[in-house]
C-alpha cells in the first residue's frame, strides 16, 4: 500500500476529485493548507500599501491505495491539476505499513 499526497491549487479540486473517482478511488482526505514552494508567495500592491502574501492557499489531498494503483492515481492528478503555470503543486508517495478500519477491525487492502 502507498499513500499518495498531493498539494494542488484550490480551484482544481473538483477536477482532481472527478478524475480520481473515475479511476476508482473511493475515499480521500482533503485539508485546506497554506504553503509556498518556488512560487514563494507573491507581492501584491493593494491600496497603495505593499501586501505580501507569504503563504498561498492550497489543498492537500491524501489517498491510500494498493501499490498497483499508484501510477494511475498519479497520472490522474497530473492531468487534472495541471495549469502549466507556476504553483501547480507537488505529489509525494509514501509507503504505508498497515491500514485498519476502526469500525470492523478489517486490515490491509480490505480496510482501504
Amino acid at each position: 500500500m502507498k499513500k499518495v499526497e498531493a498539494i494542488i491549487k484550490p480551484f482544481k479540486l473538483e477536477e482532481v476529485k472527478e478524475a480520481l473517482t473515475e479511476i476508482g478511488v473511493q475515499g480521500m482526505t482533503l485539508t485546506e493548507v497554506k504553503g509556498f514552494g518556488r512560487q514563494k508567495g507573491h507581492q501584491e500592491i493593494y491600496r497603495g500599501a505593499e501586501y505580501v502574501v507569504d503563504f498561498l492557499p492550497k489543498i492537500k489531498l491524501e489517498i491510500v491505495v494498493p501499490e498497483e494503483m499508484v501510477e494511475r492515481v498519479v497520472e490522474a492528478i497530473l492531468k487534472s491539476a495541471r495549469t502549466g503555470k507556476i504553483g501547480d503543486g507537488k505529489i509525494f508517495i509514501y509507503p504505508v505499513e498497515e491500514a485498519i478500519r476502526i469500525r470492523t477491525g478489517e486490515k490491509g487492502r480490505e480496510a482501504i
Partner: protein
Amino acid sequence: MLTEGHSEKGSRERCFYFDKFVRGLWEPLFRENPESRERVALVALGGYGEGYLCAGSDVDLLFLHAGLSEGTLASFVERLIYPLWDYHFEVSYRIFTPEEALRFALEEPTFLTALFSARLVYGSEALFAELLRGLRKLVSGRAKELYLRLKKYREARLARLGEEVYFLEPHLKEGPGGLRDFQFLIWAGRIVFGLEGLEDFVRTGLLTPEEEREISGAVSFIRRVRETLHRFCERKEDRLFMEYQPEIARRLGYPPDRRGTETFMTELFRAFSTLKEAVEDLMETVEELFFPEASPKIRFEVPSPTGAFLRRIFEIQAHEGRPLDRHLKKYLRGRFFCPEELEELRKAFPSLLTEPYSLLMLRSLRTTEVLYQILPEFRPLQGKVQYDLYHLYALDEHLFLTVEALHRLRSERPDLWKELPGGLPKELFFAALLHDVAKGQPGHAEVGAQRVREIAPRFGFSGQALEEVVFLVRHHLLLMDTALRRDLEEEKVVEEVALKVKTPSRLASLYLLTLADARATGPRAFTSWKAELLEDLYQKVRKLLQARKGTPDLAQKRKALLKEISPLLAESVPLPQLEHYDLPTLKRICLLVKSFLSSERAFLAEISPRPEGYSLFVVCPDRPGLLADLCGSLLAAGFRLRRVRAFTWPQGLAVDEFVVEPFWPGANLEEWKGLLARIFDQEVDLASLLSHKSESIWKLGPKIKWESPSEIQIDQESSPFYTILEIYTAEAPFLLYEIATTITHHGLTIGKALVSEKEDRAAFILYLQTKEGEKLSAQEAEELRQKIQNQLKEVRS
C-alpha cells in the same frame, strides 16, 4: 433493570421499578434491625426525585439518617449502592442528617436545587418531613440571595452553551430552553414565590392556563426526545448531534425522510423557545420585584391612536438595545395589528436594520410573532434546519446573524464601508436579512432574488434601490463560488465578476454581504484559508473596476453581442477589447475568429481600406514572439505601423488589429500575407530580411524629426495580472519591432498591446508576463527597462 417502555412513560416506569428494587433490598435490613425503620430514609433527588429516570441518567440519592451508628449506616448504603454499580448505574449519593443536608445546601446551590425535587423512596417519613420543613425555612428568608445564585449559575451555563435556541446540535439538558431551564423556572418559583409546581403558577396568575399547557407540552416533548436519545446511544448523551437526528426523528414517529427530520427539529426548536421565554418572563417578574429601579426595559404603554405604536417600540429597541418588558411582550404576542399600524413599522423596518441593536429587535419581533405580520415570508424559515456540514444555526437565526455580522464588520473593515455611498445602505442590510429566503429550493439565490423583487417594494424599495437588493440576493454566492472554484490568476475569471458587479461600491457591498453570510454560518464555513482567497478576488476585481470607469456599458455591450453571436465567442472577447470597439466591429471580430477556428490555416487576416492606408485584423494562435513577427513582416512588406491593438483570448488566440500605411505606393498586403505564411513556416528568417531592408526604410521615416525626450515606465500596480511597460518616445518605424523582439528575447510574453504612432510621438503600452503567466519580478522589470532605454538611445544616435 432498564425496562423497555416508551419515552416519558418509559422513564416513569423505570422510576417505579427502581423504587421497588430499593424496597426489595432494604426490607430485610429493616426486619433485622426494626428500630432503624424510623431512623433512616432513602431520598431521591434531581430527575429521579421528580419521578423520571431516563435510560442513561445518573441516579442522585440522599441517605438521610438520624445519627445511626456507622456500621448500621454502612450496611444500608452498601446494600443499595453495590447492586446499582453492578447494574452499571452512575450513582452519586450523599449521607447526611437533615441538619447537615441543609447546611450543605447553603454552600452548594446545585445540592439546594436537587433538594427541591426530593422524594421519599423508602424509610422514615418523619425524617423526610423534617428535611422538608427545614428546607422551607431555609429558603423563606433568603429568597433574593438564592435567586441571584441560581441566576448566576444559569448565566454561566448559557455562556458555555450559547444564548440562542436555534443551534443545530442542541444540548437537550443544558442548552437554552433545555430541561435545566425548566428546572430553573420551577426552582425560581419555589424560592421566590413558594410555588410547588406549574399548577401553582397558574393559580397565582404568573401563567395563563394556555401558557401552562404550552410549557408542559414542551417539557414532555424534550423529555421524550432525551429518553429516545439515551436509548438510541445506550448511554447518557444529551447533545443531539446531527448524525443522530434522522434516527431520533424516526423513532419518535416522524416520516423517515429528510422532511421528517426537519419537522422534528423545527418542533424541538419551538419547544426550546417556549421554555426559554417562560424562564425569561419569570426572571423579569422576579427582578421587577427585587430591583424595581434597575430595569431598563421598554414598558407597555397604552397604544397611541396614530398608528405609530408598533414602530415606536421597535425603533427604541433597535436604537437603544433595551429589552421589551413582560407585559409588553404578552400584549404583542399573538395580537393581530391593523394594516396602518403594520404599514408604519414596515416602512421603517429597513432603516431599523441598520441600527446598532437590530439583532435584539429581530429576535423580539420573532418571539412576539410581529415579524410574521409584516413579513409573512419569514414564518416558514423559523427554526428551519439546514443540513450541511457548515451551518450551526437554523435558517432564520442564520439570517439574523448575517445582519449582526454586518454591524461587526463596520469596525473591522472600514475600507469596505468607505466605498459605500451614504454610510449604511438599507439595501445591504435588507438583502442580508433575506439572502437565503428561498433556501432549500434548487437555485435558491435566483429564486430568492425573484421573491425579493416582490417583497422589497412593500418595504419602500423601488427603482435603483430595489434593483440593488435584488442584485445582492441573486449574487450572494458569486464571490465565494468564484474564489473557491475558479482560477484567480486568470484575468478572464476576474473580468467576469467585474462585468456582473459593475461598480466598486457595489463590489464592496457584495463583499460585505459575503463576509457576513460566511461568518453567520459558522467557523467551519469561514476559515482564514477561504478568507484569503476571497480577499484576493475582491482586490483583483476592485482594481479592474477602478481602472475602467466605463464598465457598466460594457455589460450592455456584452449582452447585445450575445444576442447575435454564439455565447462561446461573445464571452471570450476580453474586456478591454470590448471597450475599444463598437458593436459592429466586435461582431466582425467574432465572425473572423469563428472562421479561423473552423479553418486549417496558420492565420487569418481581414483587410479593410482606410483613408490613409488599411486596417487589418489578424487571428492566429498566440505564442512568444508573435507580435514581433507580425510587426516585422509588415515592415518588411513596406508598411508603416500607425496603431496596434493586440489582445489574447482565453482560447490562446491572438486577435490583433493593425492600422498601417504603405511606405511606398506599390506596397501590397497580399504579398505581406505570403511573407507571413513563409515566416510561420520558418522558410524566411525575418531578422536577416529586415537587416537588408532597414537602410531603405530608415530613409523614409520618421515623418517629422523631432527631438523629444523618451519616457519609460514600469507599472506593477494597475493590473493584478500583468506588468505594464509604457514607452513614450519619438516615432521611428522599427521601434515596435525592436522592442517586441527584445521582450521575446527576455522570455516574456505580451498579453495585450496598445500602440499608437502619431506623426511625432509614439506611445507603446505593453502588458507583460513571464512564461509562467506571472508578473515580472522587480529585478526582471528593471533589467528590461535598462535594455529598452539603451535601445531608444541607439535609435536616436
